[in-house]
């Protein structure tokens, strides 16, 4: 375990900001059973995120960080977009390099960590938006699946380029009017979860983040399968309430409505992935 890197020198402790002391004393390290139920009681791994009030993406980030089974040995690779506003606030090793190259960077990190630390589990998780995953980064995303990289890719799908001011993305629904699509989007929403299956992912899930517990289950399955088998993909609906004209307390309602239609819970796993998931269940880690 390397969570002792968060231990603070006793002599300096009185000068250290409270949130850093809390990371050592109240965060959940070294416990694969940690989960969203710890949220009210423990120190979270994200501090003062800078997203909009009520942004469902911030909820998703909190649930995901609370659900990582091995945060002390987890590397997070992100991309440009709203998510890149959050990464400086995360207490783990995170990388932002370019827009769209996140799965390529993650591939390099994962492969090198495997040879540098052959006896340790080091999870590599990609967190990126729909533009990064499906438009500008689609090549790197799919190629990492083809190559069977042992990484978990999580896409925050808000169906729009939100950080740049609301332009159409490949994951925008056909007909929706956004900037750069003044007559409405001319083609269908890209079925990324299906592309992930066809490209060799061993565990794929599509859901909204309306249910924290369900997010936890999916994230844990995706990480355990990536560790043992190969690439996994999680597609989360995290609506941009700002760009679709909702109030800051409307996010949950919006996700619950989409739970019944285009983001109805969908899960796919290969037989090998199912074996791993069953084994993890037997160990009471799911």
């Amino acid at each position, binding site marked *: 375990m*390397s969570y002792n*890197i*968060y231990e603070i020198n006793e002599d300096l402790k009185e000068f250290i900001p409270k949130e850093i002391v809390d990371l050592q004393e109240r965060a959940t390290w070294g416990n694969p059973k940690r989960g969203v139920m710890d949220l009210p009681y423990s120190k979270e791994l994200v501090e003062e995120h*800078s997203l909009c009030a009520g942004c469902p993406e911030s909820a998703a980030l909190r649930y995901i960080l609370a659900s990582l089974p091995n945060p*002390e*040995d*987890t*590397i997070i*690779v992100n991309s*440009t977009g709203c998510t*890149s*506003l959050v*990464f*400086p606030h995360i*207490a*783990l*090793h*995170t*990388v*932002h*390099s*370019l827009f769209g*190259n996140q799965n*390529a*960077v*993650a*591939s*390099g*990190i*994962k*492969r*090198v*960590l495997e*040879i*540098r*630390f052959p006896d340790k589990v*080091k999870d590599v998780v990609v967190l990126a938006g729909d533009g990064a995953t499906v438009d500008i980064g689609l*090549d*790197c995303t799919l*190629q990492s699946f083809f*190559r069977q990289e042992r990484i978990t890719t999580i896409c925050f799908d808000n169906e729009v380029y939100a950080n740049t001011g609301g332009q159409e993305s490949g994951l925008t629904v056909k007909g929706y009017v956004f900037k750069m699509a003044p007559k409405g989007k001319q083609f269908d929403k890209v079925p990324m979860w299906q592309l992930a299956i066809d490209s060799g992912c061993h565990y794929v899930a599509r859901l909204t983040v309306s249910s924290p517990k369900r997010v936890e289950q999916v994230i844990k399955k995706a990480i355990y399968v990536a560790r043992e088998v190969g690439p996994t993909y999680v597609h989360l609906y995290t609506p941009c309430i700002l760009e679709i004209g909702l109030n800051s307390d409307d996010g949950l309602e919006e996700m619950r409505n989409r739970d019944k239609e285009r983001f109805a819970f969908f899960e796919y796993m290969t037989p090998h992935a199912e074996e791993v998931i069953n084994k993890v269940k037997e160990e009471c880690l799911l």
Partner: protein
Amino acid sequence: MQATETLLYNRAGQKIVSPDYLLFEAPRAKHFMTGSEAVKEAVRRASVDASVSYPITPQSEAAHLIGELWAEGYVGVYFRGESEFGVMSEVAGCAMAGARTITTTSGPGTLRAMENFPMWAGTRIPVQLVLMARGINSPLSIQPDNLEVGFLLDTGCMIWYAETAQDLFDMILAGFTVAEQPDVHVPVINVIDGFFVSHTREAIMLPPDDIALPPYNPYKAPMPVIDAEVPPGRFLRDPFVMKSNYISYATHASWQWEVRAAIERSRPYAKHYLRGLIELFGNPEAELVFVACGTASAQAKEAVRLLEDEGIPAKVVKLKTIRPFPIEELRESVKGAKYIFVPEFNVVGWLEREVRRYLYGHSNAEIIGAPRVAGGMTMPAEAIVKEVLKLTGKEVKHVI
């Protein structure tokens, strides 16, 4: 944490020796090989952890040969990436995770990968790129032409230029050594002229293959290695610019200055491991000077010999590094010059611009950006001589 005791052998079982021993002291034996094969022999002796490849002429063979080294156990990670953009991001990931990393590319591949190079420098990873320069589109060309180097000058990477396969072999080993110094720690791009160096065989002196550079120690890096073994900085590879305030602007600006300052700090190391940032050839007193790098300097040396026959003393200042630019060395070496020719393998004359920039106010010599060839044209020594004779009003005897 990795063991801190002194290692005796690397992953491949080679005995670890100091860079000075490997480069300067180890006995060398003569071999006959191409530039691509010289890359393989350098990587074999460099305790390389990771390499990612992608096919493009003329660098493909060097990339294949690194793959063979991986199959033989000399390199830890090797695979073919999806494109040069993906490859340069994959090697960035490898280096961030603590690996000594090398890759190769050429021409259009360099441009495809372009967004990555400033990212490498800003991330302070000591990745090594062997660039086998070729023409860029359009029209399509696979021939030697070094226009692409002009685009790389301000990426924040060190840029060195090898004239021969021997230079390339030594520069690859020196490149890792200098780039990985904790007070440097920026990427290094070792350039050769594609085909002229990559595909031609020449005599090359190699140290034995059972010795190698000390492995890279990522914990000496000025930035935290991304392996979850060291505390993450709050600013870790952080997109500063995303915070719209004056501290973020100042941070971004000073970070970029620091990358350039790191290149400046590489000078003493590069001087030592390259035996100087420039090489002089010909008559030291000559008023006629060629300033060149790579194959152009090889051809200029031939031109100096031909000019001797004409009774015209001349010399060549070969630049081994372009970033950092050997400013003082160049000014010193052209003190007595009346005419400075800058022969180049590209249409824009990026080296001429550099020479003018650094000699402005420091030399009264006339600077002439000629001859210039491109798109795969060769630069016969006679073509260089012709330019000189045109200037002196002498009759051109040589048939070109």
